[in-house]
């Protein structure tokens, strides 16, 4: 451990917010797009340095522990690769006139504010601050989703705003209830909002109040995770916004909400008298998985298809954490990381494809591997990965979820496998029609940045074949932390 010459936590927060101010002021898209990449890279490097620099001890606002380091690094990494993709994607949008340069300035500033919000949610040790951060990230993405100002984009943004705000309001009510439950033990003031202190003394809290609080938090943050009965905003928001935003929504924002939920799960589980959060999470996760798997069959819009696939995978992850125990938690963590990497890679491919073809309709896209081999095969690998085939990373994590479930609850495992197979069938069906066969639509050459997509896919493939021992040890430790 190197004694801290600079403070990586401050850097992770300050770089995005300062660059947001800068990007809002600077004209010219080429410069701002590059600056966006540079800022994201700097944030990523600062996040990486968390591994080597001495950690700050948990304060009343900031906490860095083994759990959130994983998420911060993943978040900033995908944020960085998406900014590269975004630069080439947005250039094309400017050419076709879907966006003007004034909107681009706004877009880049919002992108950095969103990254700030997500990083703040990860590092915050204060449940109130965490709520503020999630709310900030939500509001920025609402504005981004509506940026095209078409009918569909406005509808999507409005729906997202209404459902997202209601969810976040319920989460705030849950947060207040947690404070109320803690007050008799912790006393008044700041201590009652500090997560590490709350967990230490959660055993003495009023269990009934804690139960009600968890239900509100689960509903509230669950809306943002996109769990089944509350998912309605997700497909629209993913399909209508700019594709880089779909990539970060699917890959990152869902993780942020889930991370908040995990923190509260640990808190509630620390009280022996309260309800076990597990069964609730298992049920909702399973419902999301099976529901989304059925919905996959009827999609005609390619971005909507992968939005439903995100609901499916969030279902699997919530199911895994609901099962609990070292193995299932390990699988859930691995699945979160793998899903983020794969899903954003898929959206990179889909973004370029829909730009070339000028449509998002699946029936108008054919034979991609013939006309655009790099994009087509990239998409094939991505979909094979997301469908859970070996030897890619998601196969590993899904296999672990299924096998740990079989060991403990064979009946649930049957339902889980049913959902997985259903989704697998739908994805292969769509993939074969899009990637193979007689080419259809425009065959113009792609002006695309392939590096982010292939970097992600290489990581997913690498993780599927060989997981380095230190990484496994780290994840096992975190899995234990999750209980």
């Amino acid at each position, binding site marked *: 451990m190197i004694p801290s010459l600079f403070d990586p936590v401050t850097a992770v927060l300050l770089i995005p917010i300062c660059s947001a101010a800068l990007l809002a002021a600077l004209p010219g898209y080429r410069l701002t797009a590059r600056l966006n990449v540079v800022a994201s890279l700097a944030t990523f490097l600062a996040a990486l340095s968390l591994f080597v620099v001495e950690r700050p001890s948990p304060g009343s606002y900031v906490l860095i522990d083994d759990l959130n380091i994983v998420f911060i690094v993943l978040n900033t990494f995908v944020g960085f690769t998406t900014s590269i993709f975004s630069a080439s994607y947005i250039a094309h949008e400017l050419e076709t006139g879907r966006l003007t340069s004034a909107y681009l300035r706004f877009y880049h500033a919002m992108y950095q504010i969103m990254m700030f919000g997500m990083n703040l949610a990860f590092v915050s040790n*204060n449940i*109130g*601050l965490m*709520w*503020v951060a999630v*709310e*900030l990230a939500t*509001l920025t993405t*609402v*504005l981004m989703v*509506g940026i095209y*100002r*078409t*009918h*569909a984009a*406005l*509808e999507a*943004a*409005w729906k997202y*705003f*209404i459902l997202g*705000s*209601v969810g976040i*309001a*319920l989460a*705030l*009510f849950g*947060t*207040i*209830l947690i*404070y*109320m439950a803690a*007050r*008799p033990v912790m*006393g*008044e*003031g*700041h201590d*009652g*909002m500090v997560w590490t202190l709350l967990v230490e003394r959660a055993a003495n809290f*009023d269990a*009934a*109040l804690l*139960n*009600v609080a968890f239900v509100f938090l689960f509903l509230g943050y669950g809306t943002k995770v996109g769990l089944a009965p509350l998912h309605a905003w997700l497909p629209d928001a993913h399909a209508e916004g700019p594709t880089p935003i779909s990539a970060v929504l699917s890959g990152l924002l869902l993780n942020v909400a889930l991370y908040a939920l995990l923190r509260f799960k640990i808190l509630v589980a620390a009280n022996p008298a309260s309800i076990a959060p597990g069964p609730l999470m298992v049920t909702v996760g399973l419902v999301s998985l099976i529901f989304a798997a059925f919905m996959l069959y009827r*999609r*005609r*819009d390619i971005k*909507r298809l992968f939005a439903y696939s995100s609901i499916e995978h969030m279902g699997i992850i919530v199911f895994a954490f609901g099962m609990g125990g070292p193995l299932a938690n390990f699988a859930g963590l691995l699945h979160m990381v793998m899903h983020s990497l794969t899903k954003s890679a898929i959206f990179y491919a889909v973004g370029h494809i829909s730009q070339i073809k000028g449509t*998002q*309709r699946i029936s108008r896209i054919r034979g991609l591997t013939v006309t655009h081999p790099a994009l087509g095969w990239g998409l094939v690998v991505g979909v094979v990965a997301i469908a859970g085939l070996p030897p890619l990373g998601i196969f590993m994590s899904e296999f672990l979820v299924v096998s740990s479930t079989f060991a403990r609850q064979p009946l649930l495992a049957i339902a889980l496998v049913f959902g997985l197979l259903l989704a697998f069938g739908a994805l292969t069906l769509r993939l074969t029609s899009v990637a193979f066969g007689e080419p259809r639509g425009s065959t113009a050459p792609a002006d695309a940045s392939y590096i982010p997509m292939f970097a992600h896919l290489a990581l997913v493939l690498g993780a599927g074949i060989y997981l380095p021992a230190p990484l496994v040890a780290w994840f096992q430790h975190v899995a234990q932390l999750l209980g």
Partner: protein
Amino acid sequence: MHSLAFDVSHTLAGGLVLISLMMLYQDRLYSLLNVFALHALVLSLSVAWQAFIQDAPHLYVTAVIALVFKAIIIPVALHRIIKQLGIHRDIESAVGIGPTMLAGMGLVALSLVLMLRVTGDADPLAREDLAFALSVVLLGLLVMVTRRNAVSQVVGFMSLENGLVLAATGAKGMPLVVEISVAFSILIAFIVIGIFLFRIRERFDSVDVSALDDFRGERR
């Protein structure tokens, strides 16, 4: 018997629930906005009273924010938007007034039963505040689901946030972070809403959300 402090805060919180119920049967946009302004006014009184009895000066800030932003600026701004758009005549509600009122009463009963049961140990003032706050939150949700007009959905959402402020101030000694954040979020939310209303207007010449429904779901 109860002290004066208890009685006054009980009255104010109960008044908020009553005004929330009043929102349910307003069938004109202007009157809905007026009721909302009253809601915000009572909220700021309630918060100021809490600041006084808890001896927590920072809550006065919250009260002033509620008074200035929610009781004056936002209703006035929404009034002007409605006037400009020429949509002041009526509200298209998706559900009739009778069933809505019944549902509203049911929600109040539900939140009282739930909150009073689980907060047995807390002091009576805090637990009643919490029960009333949950009622206001749920009634705000009900306003949102029973209206099809974007402006009235926004009003429903803001009355929901008023309920959250009531809960946060009722929780004694809760740090300032939350109050600021609530006020802040409302401010941002309002900017968002403003932008959206104008965009919707620009595109559809109407702020009826059902115009948006034509584009629901899949592209065909």
